[in-house]
């Protein structure tokens, strides 16, 4: 990345377009967090590209004074892949929602992660379709009443982080829209990871699904219901960090323990290892009411990114065969002359 002449500030990443999200939408906080974080990453505006699909979240690129491409429903991963393969020097961020990324774009979501294209993928999860006025989404809970499910939704919801891990995603994290400073930390970590970095961001839709995450995000219960993980640190949560997660004998599941009860000490609490895929699966599926929901970088275990592998393969081909010569190509194989 080129170093900009003058250090950029949050303002430099604000575009001249009026932001048109509903008042109180969680997207505002996420936008502010990105605009606040980018200057710290030493990036330039011209090498930064935001690619999005369709939905409220996908209006995001218009509000960034970087390059931006608002594309079609669900297909942002494919377009972002093309951008990154065409020019691996670009820093590509992809913005999607639970509907865009998991419903119509579920297929592409799976493949961009398993290929490990070097992108930061931000999924705003509000468990509802906002732009089409409130139908249930792939992450909506069973029983949700919406215009298309007047008697309650019957579909089992998707857990985006579990899906990302299942698709072989090498960086999987979870954050909260209004928790701006932690969100900024996640953006920094995602940006530092070469490969697909997936962040699920719990986001509130005040119009169609207000309070969908209240049981996790409300300030008074946050400490009990949020487990913030950090590599190398014990998995502690709760008021005064008195609770922890212990790997059950055999390591097949986790259980909540309270320090000081039944002889439990901090040594009994599992330590977060972000390179441990099994642990990541265990953390990603923790759900209320029996467990806190896990936040932070659940998994980060880099392997070479797809775009770097493609670039390397192209370079090897040139090394092996020389820069191709069109005349030689056309004259290869059987040819003959007519005199």
């Amino acid at each position: 990345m080129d170093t900009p002449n003058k250090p950029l500030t949050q303002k430099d990443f604000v575009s001249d377009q009026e932001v048109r999200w509903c008042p109180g939408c969680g997207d505002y906080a996420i936008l502010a967090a990105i605009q606040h974080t980018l200057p710290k990453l030493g990036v330039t505006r011209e090498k930064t590209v935001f690619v999005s699909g369709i939905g409220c979240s996908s209006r995001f690129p218009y509000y960034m004074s970087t390059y931006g491409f608002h594309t079609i429903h669900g297909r942002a991963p494919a377009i972002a892949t093309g951008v990154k393969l065409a020019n691996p020097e670009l820093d590509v961020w992809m913005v999607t929602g639970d509907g865009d990324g998991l419903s119509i774009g579920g297929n592409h979501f799976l493949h961009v992660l398993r290929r490990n294209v070097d992108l930061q993928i931000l999924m705003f999860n509000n468990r509802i379709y906002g732009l089409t006025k409130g139908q249930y989404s792939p992450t909506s809970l069973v029983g949700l009443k919406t215009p298309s499910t007047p008697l309650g939704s019957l579909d089992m919801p998707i857990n985006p982080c579990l899906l990302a891990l299942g698709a072989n995603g090498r960086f999987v994290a979870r954050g909260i829209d209004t928790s701006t400073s932690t969100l900024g930390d996640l953006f920094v970590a995602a940006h530092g990871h070469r490969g697909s970095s997936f962040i699920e961001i719990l986001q509130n839709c005040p119009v169609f699904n207000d309070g969908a995450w209240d049981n996790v995000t409300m300030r008074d219960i946050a400490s009990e219901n949020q487990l913030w993980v950090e590599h190398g640190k014990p998995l502690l949560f709760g008021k005064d960090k008195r609770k922890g997660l212990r790997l059950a004998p055999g390591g097949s599941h986790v259980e909540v323990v309270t320090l000081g009860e039944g002889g439990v000490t901090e040594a009994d609490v599992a330590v977060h290892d972000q390179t441990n895929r099994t642990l990541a699966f265990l953390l990603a599926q923790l759900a209320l009411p029996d467990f806190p929901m896990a936040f932070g970088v659940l998994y980060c275990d880099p392997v070479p990114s797809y775009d770097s592998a493609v670039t390397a393969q192209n370079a090897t081909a040139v090394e092996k065969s020389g820069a191709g010569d069109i005349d030689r190509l056309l004259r290869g194989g059987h040819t003959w002359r007519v005199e």
Partner: protein
Amino acid sequence: MDTPVRSKDADGREILDSVVIRFAGDSGDGMQLAGMQFTQTTAVAGNDLATFPDFPAEIRAPAGTTFGVSGFQIHFASHDVLTPGDEPDVLVAMNPAALKVNLRDVPSGGLIILNTGAFTPQNLKKAGYEKNPLEDGTLDPYRKLEIDVSKLVVAAVEPFGLGTKEALRAKNVWTLGLLYWLFGRDRTPTIEWLKKKFAKRPDIAEANIAALNAGHVYGETAELPTGVAAYKIPKADLPRGHYRNITGNEALAWGLATAGRLAELPVFYGSYPITPASSVLHSLAGLKHYGVTTFQAEDEIAAICSAIGASYAGIIGATATSGPGMALKGEAMGLAIMTELPLVIFDVQRAGPSTGMPTKTEQSDLFQAVWGRNGDAPLVVLAPATPGECFYMAIEAVRLAIKYMTPVIVLSDGYIANGAEPWAIPSFADLPKIPVAFRTDPAGFHPYVRDPETLARNWAKPGTPGLEHRIGGIEKNFASGHISYDPENHQKMTKTRADKVLGVAKDLPLQKVEIGNERGKMVVVGWGSTYGSIHQAVRRARKDGLDVSHVHVRHLWPLPSNLADLLGGFERVLVPELNNGQLVRLLRAEYLIPADPMDKISGMPFRVAELEQEIRVKLAAPLVRNNRLS
């Protein structure tokens, strides 16, 4: 053979002008391989030629059944060859099923080469024969060469210690050897090819060479039945030059790689496998050292979207597919039209709606290409007429896509994709460069600032300082490119997008008459792969003094600027198409002319004879207009 036997040459071979051979056998019998080898050696021998591979969609249908029959037809001559031929002069039938499927196409007196070893009671039953056609008089109208190839090939390869099953695999090569003798072909290219192909199994290579030689020796030494001789087809009088055989799909791939070099830009090719387009991907995947990145996407939509992403990032984005895949790509084409990005789309058409008939040819995606998107969504549509033209059309598509910042569709089809023809190889230095000008100046920059001549917006690629901007599928303001729902602006933008594409006509060559007068009683208007059949039919009709001309449209949208005037000079316009009347409706709609349709929707190309017949019938009929399509 379409012209009578003229004479014999010094070594006793009968001299022929033109021969059509059809190889037919089980899908596993190696008929395509035999056909391709015969094609190569025929090209080297200096004949002009055209080929038509015709194979089933099943990878391996049950052996011996009629639906597992694979065919390869080659037409070669001492004059110019425009089609693979209406009917085979020589049919090679490797088993009863191949005979059953193909016999109806062989004219009386045609030569049939039969592998009698495959005419077992079991195979006869599988093919649906109640009696053995070799014994019941079915073949009386034909000349026959009945040979137990199975037995002879096993004997020929015996020294190599192969099992019977493996030995029998060389049946096609043995038969090829015999045909090489019959038509005076050099075996060397095939021997070299076998050595290379089986470099890791020299025993197999040697066995095949032995089989090839044994077939040849059989021709030399066996007492051939009356009416069967050795033949010679003199060299064709082709223009001077350096030639090779080329198939349409190869030509598309090479054209795209060449266009990248002419534009001095890398090429990105995103694709999803589909018959009959897949081999474009296979060819390009081998050209990474030419600055080509290939990406096998998870589906058709991802394929085109990745190409759009690449174009947005400032290189040449391209994709290829066939009918059903085109349908899936439609929405993304709309995005490329709305964001005014260059994009190249090859549609190698196949027969029918939905899955249709994947291995059979048709021209029924014309409407889909020209109109098949939501909203008023214009783009450029080109159609090559021959395999060799695919090369130039791929280059033309890239040139127009960049110059006008628009998607361009190249409509090929299964017939051109797999068919081969001798092709005069161009020199890279003779091909015109493709100019590319990226916007770099921030002064007065808006993403939708247009060139006043072409109406193309400027191409500002990410990475350029000062040009940061946002684009997307939502309607945008004419100047700034910002989202706009203003009613007048939408009208203006819709008209501008249409005018931009229509303006491409100024950049196209004027429509020429391929053969015949520029005014007259009848013009036959074709497009795409029907070129050869139409041309030959018009040529024959004109030889008989009929007033008929041939016009072949290679630019389907926009149409050439003089086409309306040109067609207006004829009393009748006949439009033969391998679909249910698409170009004919386009011409009627655009020009309000009473054009007549001629459709063929069988998955097979036109025969010259059926076109010639229709020309005669239409010319003889009184001029009555009811203005309805049949």
